């Protein structure tokens, strides 16, 4: 690896996971709304929403680890 290459830190990884989780969460809700049955969540959607929240939480927990390489 080139010494000048960018290495992802724990904080950056946390941010990435928060972004990914939020995108999945909002995406699931939007998909539901676009289908015209907003709020009528099936088991898969509930699992998806729960999973995306879980990803966000893992991301948040990584933020305090700062600039250590991920």
């Amino acid at each position, binding site marked *: 690896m*080139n010494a000048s*290459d960018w290495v*992802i830190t724990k904080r950056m990884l946390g941010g990435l996971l928060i972004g990914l989780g939020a995108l999945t969460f909002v995406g699931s809700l939007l998909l539901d709304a676009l289908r015209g049955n907003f709020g009528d969540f099936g088991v898969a959607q509930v699992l998806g929403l729960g999973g995306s929240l879980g990803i966000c939480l893992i991301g948040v927990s990584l933020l305090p680890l700062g600039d250590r*390489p991920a």
Partner: protein
Amino acid sequence: MIGTLARVGGAARLMALAQQLLLGVALLLMALHVAVYVVYAVNLMAFPFDYDQGEGFELNDTILLSQFQSPYRDNEVFPFYASNYPPLYHVILVPLAWLFGAEYWYGRLAGFLATLITAFAIGYAVRRATGQSTIALLSGCAYLASNYVYHIGPLFRQHISMVMFETLAVVVMAGLSESRRPRRLIVASLALLLAAGYTKQLAIATVAAVFFWLFLRGVRRAIAWAIPFAAVGGGIFLLIDWSTGGQWWLNIITANVNQYILGQYTGLLSQFIGLHGALLILAGLLVVYELYLDRLSLYSVWFVAALLNSVLAGKWGAGDSYFATAIAAMCILAGIFAGRTLSGRWRLPRLLSGAERVMPLLSVAVCAAYVLYGAAVIKLPLNLPVFAQIGQALGLQSNTKFPHFYDSAGWTMGYATIGQIPTAEDIANGWRIVAYAQADPRPILSEEAAFSFRSGKPVVTNPTQLLNLYNNNTPERTLYDPSALIALIEEQAFGVVILRREIGQTAILGFYPPPVLAAIERAYALREAIPMNGHEYTVLLPRPEWSKPQ
């Protein structure tokens, strides 16, 4: 003081003894699993028909490629056949097809060898990371011991070869930071990834995991390698699609978009955890350790990606095999966790420095985890010498639909009902079905290609492929129109129709699209239902009173 030291020394000796004892039991269990697996594989290689539905179509792909014909064809033109998998596994087998013709044994041998290579790679990765030979051996054997790997390892199917390429790619790439020739290493790993992807599409998750890990370790480098990789991988894809007139895309992408059955996935996930839980805990702990206290290894990223990808096991037609990649990753992570524990190589932060005192206990626990795992994944043929006595000693009885096969996995939707050793009666019944095919000069319509190969007839249709495409038809878009096949059925152009159903079912069932099955029922009548491998093969002959509607 001396008394306290003696007590501490005594406790340490006791722990060390328990550790050795548990490792010994774990090794014995793994030896049993490997022996069962080898016996199963050897028996399958001698079985001349489809053991698992769809094997014959992979043999047909190999035969077509050996004749320099494309397996990505128009499903609406005779013989209404197309493959739904990439070609690499079949291409590798082409020289054997030239030498031995249409035989099942070499594809099954290739699958079996692929599992051995994967097990070796897992052991190598653990040995390299921890220096622990015994744990490395246990880790490799743990892969072979899994009920899921046992199931699909020695089959004429491409899936397990994909797992082999994935594992090799990851193990090669994981050595990147210690390598003096990183470029060569990356090229080798990416070539293996490409091989995995062109063996089966599911490898896409491993490709993503490898590039995500490269991205974590160096953004520019990851992008610099992703561009040529995408160009080569995508270029091959476009070239095949162009050369097949779009049949490649239709048959390996569109035809694989199937109905999703959540209950199938949750059932398989629950079974997967039940069987592999002991090692999953060790693997999970290492992922958490790396996430918060160390750098993420490629193995951890791969494990998470493979677990996420296993969600696809809920697709119609998918099953337990979709967990095989996660099992390989789990075996490496669990092995590294165990190896580090036994060799005291953990680097703990000051906050957790007190945890070192529990290391002897943790060492016993990781050894116990391998024993628990070895006990959880037991499957045994109960009618073979030695295994029968072991089964008797353990008090095991058949819990499957086969009278002489015990499988700790039980059953859930998507878990293939295979694993038993085929009997002489199964083989004799297979030849009885072939006799029907040989008795009529017309081609046959069979849900399994073996009867076509054995009777010297062309392989006509890949029924699940036709069903998948038919199910994806929409009012705006017809992916498969069965009218040409239905016309031939109504003309009674086939001498025999062979369908498969569960024993005890009475209706004419099969994997064909409903209108095709309806046409079969109109023009053909059930002659005999022949049991083989736990299923019933319905042999249908043309109805003499039938006349095609004008």
